[in-house]
């Protein structure tokens, strides 16, 4: 992967500097969205300052298991990824895309583009990769989703390198983490030693360099020492090494070759078809539309909502649902993520964030399903 944000030019800021950065972006008209603790999970919501960030919280994650624990540490980014993803902002769960008005016997239709200016703070490497995959989906060579790119192009992205891996992470085997090397405006790495708590800050774009210059004016920036760079690299490396799960390299081929396999029936006995995996997945892009009118029937709107291939309606055509069986829905989901996505977009569809494993109520593990599929049949 090409390095865009060069650690060579990186600087160091403290927690005050991070606070100043958030306020600077807010002053520039950005809605700053970042991690914060709500109802026992780290979610991505508006943040006003560094005090809103989840200092001293770590997440315990495993198949079907998520728990936040208070740790004896001031670390802000000790948690990894939670149930929210950035698609919540770039491709929102419900968005009005058209408005129509009755005019005599006819009507007129206008497109609606709602594009707030977001600063996304704390984008992990896997999620950064996921955003780049969604960029590909919404500019597919034939059509461009204007609303998506209106939000996307405005967004100021502050990546955070992971210095800890959660139990369900497998980004290393997907080549998408734990280090964010491209596609951000600013990149942060938290450095926490016995004597200091700082962040290594690198610019990945002109906008990022300008923000650092502003922070300099506010006297929030120090030069990075070689020791700081080494400490940051070591922490990220440790996260990579501690990762327990991994995806088989031949997943795409395995899935393409096993559309008929007893494992599909087996997984269907556990899968609840609840759609959680698709809702928490940062790359899943499917949507449906609802056309609604006001009470007088004078104006109508089209609302686009996230949808999931796990529902019956998703593949309904007159006469019946195409993927009527749960086994066929699970097969579609995992095959899309890991195999057909490559044919469609010439890139991977899964970034190894592990959310689908953590948030599956019965702990179905995408890495394990592929492994089982690859076992010789008995």
């Amino acid at each position, binding site marked *: 992967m090409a390095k865009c944000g060069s650690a060579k030019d990186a600087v160091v800021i403290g927690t005050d500097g991070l606070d100043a950065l958030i306020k600077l972006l807010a002053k520039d008209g950005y809605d700053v969205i970042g991690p914060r603790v709500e109802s026992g999970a780290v979610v991505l919501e508006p943040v006003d300052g560094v005090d809103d960030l989840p200092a001293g919280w770590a997440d315990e994650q495993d198949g079907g298991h998520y728990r936040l624990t208070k740790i004896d540490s001031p670390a802000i980014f000790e948690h990894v990824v939670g149930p929210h993803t950035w698609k919540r902002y770039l491709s929102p769960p419900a968005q009005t895309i058209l408005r129509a008005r009755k005019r005599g016997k006819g009507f007129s239709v206008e497109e609606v583009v709602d594009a707030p200016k977001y600063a996304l703070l704390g984008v992990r490497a896997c999620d950064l990769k996921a955003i780049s995959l969604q960029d590909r989906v919404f500019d597919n060579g034939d059509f461009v989703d204007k609303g998506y790119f209106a939000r996307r192009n405005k967004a100021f992205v502050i990546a955070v390198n992971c210095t800890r891996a959660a139990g369900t992470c497998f980004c290393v085997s997907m080549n998408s983490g734990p280090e964010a090397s491209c596609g951000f405006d600013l990149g942060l790495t938290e450095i926490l030693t016995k004597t200091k708590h700082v962040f290594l800050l690198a610019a990945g774009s002109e906008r990022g360099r300008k923000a650092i210059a502003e922070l300099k004016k506010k006297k929030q920036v120090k030069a990075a020492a070689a020791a700081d760079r080494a400490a940051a690299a070591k922490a990220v490396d440790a996260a990579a090494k501690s990762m327990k799960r991994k995806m088989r390299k031949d997943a795409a081929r395995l899935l393409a070759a096993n559309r008929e396999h007893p494992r599909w029936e087996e997984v269907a006995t556990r899968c609840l078809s609840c759609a959680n995996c698709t809702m928490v997945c940062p790359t899943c892009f499917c949507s449906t539309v609802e056309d609604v009118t006001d009470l007088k029937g004078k104006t109508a709107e089209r609302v686009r909502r996230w949808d999931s291939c796990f529902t019956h309606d998703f593949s309904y055509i007159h006469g019946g649902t195409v993927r009527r069986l749960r086994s066929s829905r699970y097969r579609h989901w995992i095959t899309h993520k890991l195999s057909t996505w490559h044919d*469609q977009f010439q890139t991977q569809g899964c970034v190894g964030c592990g959310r689908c494993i953590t948030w599956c109520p019965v702990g179905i593990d995408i890495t394990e399903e592929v492994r089982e599929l690859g076992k010789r049949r008995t």
Partner: protein
Amino acid sequence: MADPMTPEPFRIERVSRELADTFTLDLVPVGDKRDFDFQPGQFNMLYHFGVGEVPISISGDAGTKGRVTHTVRAVGTVTESMADLKKGDMVGVRGPFGSTWPMELAEGHDVVIVTGGIGLAPLRPAIYHVLANRGKYGRVAILYGARTPSDILYREELEAWSARLDVSVEATVDTAGTDWTGNVGVVTKLLPRGNFDGRDAVALVCGPEVMMRFTVHALNDQGVTNDCIFVSMERNMKCAVGFCGHCQFGSRFVCKDGPVFRFDQIEDIFRVKGI
């Protein structure tokens, strides 16, 4: 295409009742969009104000500029509400979308069209094209199946084509009363009698998936290879531009990569259930 995401208002110029549950709408653009260009096999997203939007094939003549024709069977929320539309009302149109019947590739060869029910609608533009360019094609056979004689779509037109010496038309029904003197049985039964050379024919097929499955086998029996068979697929569609994911068929988006596929290119997934 204007904006692929925003429906353009079109005025209904004529409503023709075809069958008890099927009607044809002739639409003309309002506003500055005067022409509407499409290729046989393509479809539009038709929007009924406040009710919803559905994919409907274009069933008219691609040679007629400035008008677009759709034949709709009322089966559910949107299509049933469209059945109440009258001349002068407006519908929204986005399109045209999707792949086309291989009209150029078929030149110089026999053309065999196998279709059932409402499946004749998406094939009618292909038939118009062949008839308007009759000299460019070999023998032309149209094989059509309907449930009962009263379900035969475009019956007058079928009869008119049948009367021509340069086209052979065969229709069959699943069940019929004593007043029906034609064929009874599935459409595949007509194939062995069809007036075409299987080794030099291009087949265009549209109908329910089971019907297409049997038709492909029957065509193979006549010597038509899978790279000469084209089928039009149907999947749930919400966007028609590759964003909503609903129309996925294996790795294909039926809205963008289809609806017309060369059969050998989808053969492997076509036989898998629930794909």
